[in-house]
């Protein structure tokens, strides 16, 4: 695969495993075994069955007729919002929990920002009867209270991260510290395509089901498996890498990743990593990172808690650097308006994360007959308060 990972975990200049020695045995065991496990027939059978019967896959590829009329192209929504637990995160959580079981781990830890990954992890831990601890920034716990309650109902212990800026990046630090202290019985399920190798690659593989299904569905619906455009929102970038994965080598397909511009790229309240960041190392990976001149990580801002991560996954950093994918951004207001438009034109309340991808349609021009796929990575129930406050309902 042209844009894939090399044997040391690098995508071009990005990736690797910048981890303290305390984590080396865990990461090495994972690296040595995850491919073997993923190729195992029992694993594949259980994974496929759970995706089908528990998650509800394949998720539909929905031809959005009123969107298509409005934008003058065939617009398709890949409906990850219809998955059990309401987002694409469940694809990865199930894959990693089955892997953890086969590695003999009894305890699962995770970090979460918006709560979708935490909910997905708590869900599969309940399904499998495994102990689950989710780290979440103290501020995010307040912003996403319903998801905190869901995780607790599912039996997870939710631990507030009280250090630093008390958001996702600090929850990730706390989860890594937990793993350092509990190397033998614990597996850390990272939710985005970030972290030390093999995480970015493993998460991408588990999420690649999104583009795998899309190709088949496009072929059935349009007679051609390749669209002209594929769009997805990007925080760390797990839904985007899953949406891009099986199109990466199809160079005719334009891949567009939409970051969160927050209040505007130049306002100092933004999470537009590729515009504002530069190369650096965070959470075990060399990537593009928002930081000060002195290399201190800058806390990003977005109205969407799922997009305010200061970096992007290393494969995205590579795709950006070699111009295989385009990285653009949408502001809070643009995303919220796009979310409302999806409600009004298609009867779908999208997660504010996904609404960022929808917002970019306003800035595009299409040729008649163009096929465009947008990943609707999650549903907007968790964001109702934000929508309500913004629009005054």
């Amino acid at each position: 695969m042209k844009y894939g990972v090399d044997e040391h975990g690098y995508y071009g200049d990005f990736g690797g495993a910048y981890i303290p020695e305390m984590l080396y045995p865990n990461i090495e065991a994972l690296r040595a075994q995850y491919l073997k496990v993923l190729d195992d027939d029992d694993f594949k059978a259980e994974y496929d069955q759970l995706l089908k019967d528990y998650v509800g896959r394949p998720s539909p590829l929905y031809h959005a007729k009123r969107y298509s009329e409005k934008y003058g192209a065939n617009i398709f929504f890949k409906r990850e919002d219809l998955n059990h637990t309401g987002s694409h995160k469940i694809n990865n959580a199930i894959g990693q929990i089955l892997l953890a079981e086969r590695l003999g781990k009894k305890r699962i830890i995770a970090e979460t920002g918006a709560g979708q990954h935490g909910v997905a992890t708590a869900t599969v831990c309940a399904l499998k009867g495994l102990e689950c601890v989710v780290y979440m920034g103290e501020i995010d716990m307040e912003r996403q209270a319903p998801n905190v309650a869901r995780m607790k109902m599912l039996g997870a212990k939710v631990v507030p991260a009280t250090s630093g800026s008390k958001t996702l990046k600090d929850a990730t630090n706390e989860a890594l510290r937990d793993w350092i202290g509990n190397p033998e019985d614990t597996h850390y399920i990272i939710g985005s395509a970030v972290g030390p190798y093999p995480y970015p690659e493993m998460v991408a593989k588990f999420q690649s089901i999104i583009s795998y299904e899309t190709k088949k569905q496009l072929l059935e619906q349009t007679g051609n498996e390749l669209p002209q455009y594929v769009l997805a929102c990007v925080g760390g970038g797990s839904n985007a890498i899953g949406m891009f994965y099986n199109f990466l080598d199809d160079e005719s397909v334009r891949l567009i990743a939409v970051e969160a511009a927050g209040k505007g790229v130049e306002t100092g309240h933004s999470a537009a990593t590729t515009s504002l960041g530069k190369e650096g190392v965070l959470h075990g990976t060399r990537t593009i990172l928002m930081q000060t001149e002195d290399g201190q990580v800058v806390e990003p801002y977005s109205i969407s808690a799922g997009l305010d991560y200061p970096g992007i996954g290393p494969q995205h950093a590579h795709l950006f650097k070699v111009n295989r994918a385009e990285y653009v951004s949408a502001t809070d207001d643009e995303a919220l308006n796009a979310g409302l438009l999806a409600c009004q034109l298609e009867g779908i309340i999208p997660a504010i994360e996904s609404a960022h991808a929808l917002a970019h349609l306003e800035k595009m021009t299409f040729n008649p007959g163009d096929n465009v796929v947008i990943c609707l990575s999650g549903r907007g129930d968790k964001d109702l308060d934000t929508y309500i406050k913004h629009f005054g309902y």
Partner: protein
Amino acid sequence: MNRLQTLFANKKSNLLSIYFTAGYPELNTTLDIAEALENAGADFLEIGFPYSDPVADGPTIQKSSEKALENGMTLNVLFKQLTQLRERVNIPVLLMGYINPIVQYGIERFCQKAAEVGVDGVIVPDLPIYEYEKLYADTFKQNNLSNIFLVTPNTSEERIRKIDGLSNSFIYLLSSSSITGSTLNVSTSIEDYYKRIKEMELANPTIIGFGISNNASYTKACEYANGAIVGSAFVKHLATDNYLQTIPGFIDNIRPKS
């Protein structure tokens, strides 16, 4: 030979190193603390440069880093302070910190500057072997800087041998697989680990760190290694009144004068 290599050539046991975070509790006390530690008898020093996301550190050192950043500590500021290092301090000095500030400063510039001010080695917990060999080793060597690798109870013998081959001053043995500031728990398995390392007869000396906070843990560590490092316990000391004047007492509590 750099000062670290000279030290280890001359003194084989009961070495004591102290870690502190530059810029904590005050921005401009780095050299005052270093000088006081040398006068109190420390054998070598680790000066930490702060990072916003120190995943290998516990709450004590993390808070000291946050405060140091608030105080305005940066690598630029630290190197300016260290231009007078060798006028005031003779013992070996290591810099300890995370890789991202080094990447931003520029690895070559960082190593040149460190060598210029008289730093002898570097400890970068999130820089594993592969990344060091591929991206950094040549620059470290050109500037006569020792890179210190960490070893934990879970590090395999094969990997320890590799680390020994890449080291040229000492190897940092973690007392447990944990973050800094955790309590040293001398269990049978930990003693087995220390014994296992000792029996490997490594080419490089070993120093035990993490969880060394008093005379008992220091003495225990010195039974199995060439010495020990005190970090979080000293950073806690820096939060007390008259911390400079009471440094001799702090050192005496760890390693009483014979």
